[in-house]
């Protein structure tokens, strides 16, 4: 996904304005002219300046560089779906891993992505089972990371 520099320029300027506006709520340091707002203001000012330059540069190239260029993957429905599924599966993990448990969530995500990227269903299921159990053993047993059991809690080993 390629965007014209002007698009980034506008995003950066808006971001910088919001960021600097927020810094006005910061308290100042007692007896000092500079407080926790100094660095954010410098960063915001720098981003705004860069934003303006990118905006001007992008507008100048408007004729040759389109505002949004999705790239070849956007034309291919299967690829778009894969990107959506990849990001979606991370969000899925964030939302449900706590109550569904690591083993089920990881198995579901792995199987889905393996199949989507072109591996046969049976192979995918076998790989997903092996990898899930391997990661679980490595992190939960060896490194003692408390991976959630979720609904599998009654059969936890």
């Amino acid at each position: 996904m390629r965007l014209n520099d002007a698009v980034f320029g506008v995003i950066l300027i808006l971001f910088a304005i919001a960021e600097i506006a927020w810094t006005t709520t910061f308290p100042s340091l007692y007896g000092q002219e500079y407080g926790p707002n100094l660095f954010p203001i410098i960063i915001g000012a720098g981003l705004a300046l860069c934003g303006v330059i990118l905006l001007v540069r992008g507008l100048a190239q408007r004729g040759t560089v389109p505002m949004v260029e999705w790239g070849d993957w956007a034309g291919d429905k299967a690829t778009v779906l894969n990107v959506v599924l990849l990001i979606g599966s991370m969000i899925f993990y964030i939302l449900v891993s706590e109550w569904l448990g690591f083993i089920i969530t990881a198995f579901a995500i792995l199987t889905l992505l393996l199949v989507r990227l072109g591996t046969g269903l049976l192979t995918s299921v076998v790989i997903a089972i092996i990898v899930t159990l391997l990661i679980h053993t490595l992190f939960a047993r060896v490194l003692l990371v408390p991976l959630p059991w979720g609904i599998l809690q009654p059969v936890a080993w």
Partner: protein
Amino acid sequence: MDTILKALALVTEPYTLGVMLLAAMFGLFVGSMPGLTATMATALLIPFTFFMDPVPAIAVIVTAVATAIFAGDIPGALLRIPGTPASAAYCDESYAMTQKGLAERALGIGLVTSVIGGLTGAVVLSLSAPALAEFAIQFSSFEYFWLACLGLSCAVIISTGSTLKGFVSLLIGLFIATIGIDGTAGHPRFTFGSIELMGGVSFIPAMIGMFAISEVLRYVASTRKALPVPQQPVGSVFSGLGPILRKYKMNIVQGSGLGAIIGILPGAGADIAAWISYALAKKRSKEPEKFGTGHPEGLVAAGAANNASVAGAWVPAIVFGIPGDSITAIVIGVLYMKGMNPGPMVFVQSPELIYAVFIAFFIANLALLPLGFAAIKMSRQILKVPQRILMPIILMFCMVGAFAINNTVFGITVMLVLGIMAYVMEENGFPVAPAILGIVLGAMIEDNFMNSMIKADGSLSGFFSRPIAATLGVLTILLWTMPLFLTLRRWMRPGTE
């Protein structure tokens, strides 16, 4: 001497040597997979190093990177796809050798020069770091403020692509570093009321997102098909290598030396070292017309340069706490997490740790010779591992790794957000390395600035009142004003463009 023996004992513990061996195999594998970089190898390893003592943790990273940078040559020679960006400079050259039926020779040259370059880098590191540290011990917050500014400025100027976009990337990194409770007033900044953001953006999930998730995204979003692996029988790796290396010994010296020095510069890593050293070898060659046709001269120089730069990058990292490239930026983050703030004080308080790092470099590069040989022999099998299976597995490791640091899924959120951000940035020509340096150095710059201001009672002149601080300050300001000055000069002399 006592310290060196102590350090040697630390590194040669069976546990440390064992994890180093695993790390070497991991590094060789990741390096030889196109699309998986040495930085990604480091990012995937940090969740594991989190559970280790400092010495094995650092030894693991040193080993994985040294082996991954060499292994990047393998798909470069066989498929014409560099395994890591560090091999991109001479990938056409080594592929041309493969087409002549000399794949093993190209890889043999890559292996031997990598080992020589890596050892040279290790020597440069172990000689220059303690000397610099002795000097750096006199530094106060003023000097550190300027050093960090200088490091970040170098990172922007040297970074690939446009300087403006590099600067934007740096500012984004610095902004990310300001999130959380600030160091001087204890006020939460940009946390949106989130308690998890109070402690700041966790470093490890951020790195995993920016270096691993972004690569997985790039793989999924690309419509490029996998290339067939050439199936010629594996020939002898080392035969006929002696005369070539003797003939081009000056190129090895040039590549190793230049690589180590480029590595020391903040922001310039193995890829830039290889490009510059290849270009220099071509420029100084008696037969530059042969470059690009499977001629070993440039290969020898660049193959040594990228491995030498890996060690060079550690010099500013352990002496000043200023990373020389993205990998050492990650290392510094790991050290902070272990409560070991890199800087000259470590040389005084626990010198055995520093010497252990040096020794790890020597061991890793020596071990690269037999392990790299095995990797070349197995290269065709390694390259057959399909990425469509690998990528979902990597994703799973990333999520568990990001979770494992604080045992909350919030780490995965950080990883996801920064991963998408890094992907969009790279697609649009914003280099990611300055952002990493910004994240790592942001807090250090701000704390040193604030401490200095409090010491100097709010007067800016304090930043120039000590001789070293003044020199560093003037250097930094010169570096900042240079682009302005150059533009002005171009305007003054019209028609010279």
